[in-house]
């Protein structure tokens, strides 16, 4: 058993987008802040109350809200952020679909939307519109651009169905 007092720092290891990271954090530090301090600023702080989903990342294959997770809980885990989606200068099909369907206005919710869409499409590559809407019900877009976001995820599903092994192997 390891016991850290409130003033101790805990050494944690994370693998973010394939890059090994090692940091020392207070137990109370939230994952979203640690990721941002490491330079992954595509992880946004929106509501800070686990409502809006702007801080969504993929943690060990599951989409989570990183504002409601302690960094110490993520020790030893693999994380995918928006920075890890494009490969060799080429956008991921979900990113392409958001571009093509104008699935964003201000862009603040977009990284969270795209990562949630990634997790959702991993579980359902042939979704109905209703399923897509339920799938992103934990992500808020205050430009209210939901219609185009839903269209983008529909298009992304089509693109991913062509080569799911290739496009869904990131996390």
């Amino acid at each position, binding site marked *: *058993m390891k*016991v850290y007092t409130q003033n*101790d720092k805990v050494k944690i290891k994370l693998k973010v987008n394939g890059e090994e990271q090692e940091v020392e954090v207070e137990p109370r530090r939230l994952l979203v802040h640690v990721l941002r301090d490491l330079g992954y600023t595509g992880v946004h702080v929106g509501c800070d109350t*686990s409502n809006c989903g702007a801080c969504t990342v993929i943690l060990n294959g599951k989409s989570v809200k990183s504002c*409601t997770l302690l960094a110490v809980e993520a020790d030893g885990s693999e994380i995918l952020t928006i920075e890890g989606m494009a490969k060799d200068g080429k956008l991921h099909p979900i990113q392409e679909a958001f571009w093509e369907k104008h699935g964003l206005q201000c862009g603040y919710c977009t990284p969270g939307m795209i990562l949630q869409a990634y997790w959702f499409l991993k579980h359902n590559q042939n979704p109905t519109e209703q399923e897509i809407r339920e799938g992103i019900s934990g992500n808020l877009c205050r430009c209210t651009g939901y219609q185009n976001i839903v269209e983008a995820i529909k298009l992304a599903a089509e693109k991913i169905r062509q080569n799911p092994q290739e496009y869904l192997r990131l996390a």
Partner: protein
Amino acid sequence: MYPPKFGYVIPESMDEVLEFLEKEQDARPLAGGHSLIPMLKLRIIRPSYLVNIRGLKELHFVNDGKDTVSIGALVTHFELNTNDIINKNVPLLSEAASVVADPQVRNMGTIGGVVSNSDPAADYPASLIALDAIVRIRNRGGVRDVPFSSFQKDVFTTDLKQGELVQEIVIPKLPAYKYRYRKLERRAGDYAIVGVAVLIKMNGEEIEDVRIGLTSVGPKAIRAKEAEELLKGNKPSDELLDKAGEEAMKVSNPTADIRGSVEYKKKMVKVMTKRALKEALER
């Protein structure tokens, strides 16, 4: 928002967890953390230590028994919704799991956490009280079983004592029952304004047995017993379901908040009870 300072414990075994929770008065177990961490941020609670129990495999299981299904405390809402054993044997709980908060929260939140937190607006309590679920509690002396109905004491208050942890929820299989969990929410992913869980066993055209669990209608989940008695032995009709809804409304005692007035919520108990019964019967 930042949580206050707290110590952090990574245990290697259940014994270590129980020992630590027993000796350290203000220590709290950390499972999914999706109620605990928001409460820390709001400084509603100030634990001395958080004991991360998420790595304990012995709390993460679904067992298909002869007459019961046992669900380990660390089973997440997503798992409850997608697990074959639960889908087959306790579909009511699967259905409730599908409407807890949102997909990301369902990936983290656990049934043990919901039960231990005892939020009066949580979804599961309506189903658990209708199913006559048992809460199996672990302490250093062993385990003790408490019916869910007496496990929940009051708002955010349970039968858990210092040094105790919810180990699993034991649920009797009710294969012949139709089911429905109906939740009223104003905003996607919110807590229930009213939640109604219904189990109905038919005998020909008559209702042989019925159980109605209500959540978010008072300090803890309740059964609408008068409504159940009214329905038993009768042939379902629109009029009868209306009356049952009214009986359910009479036993509910909601508080006014941002989600609605007392009057509105009571009326919604009537409406949602009728809908839940109707939709269960149509299955």
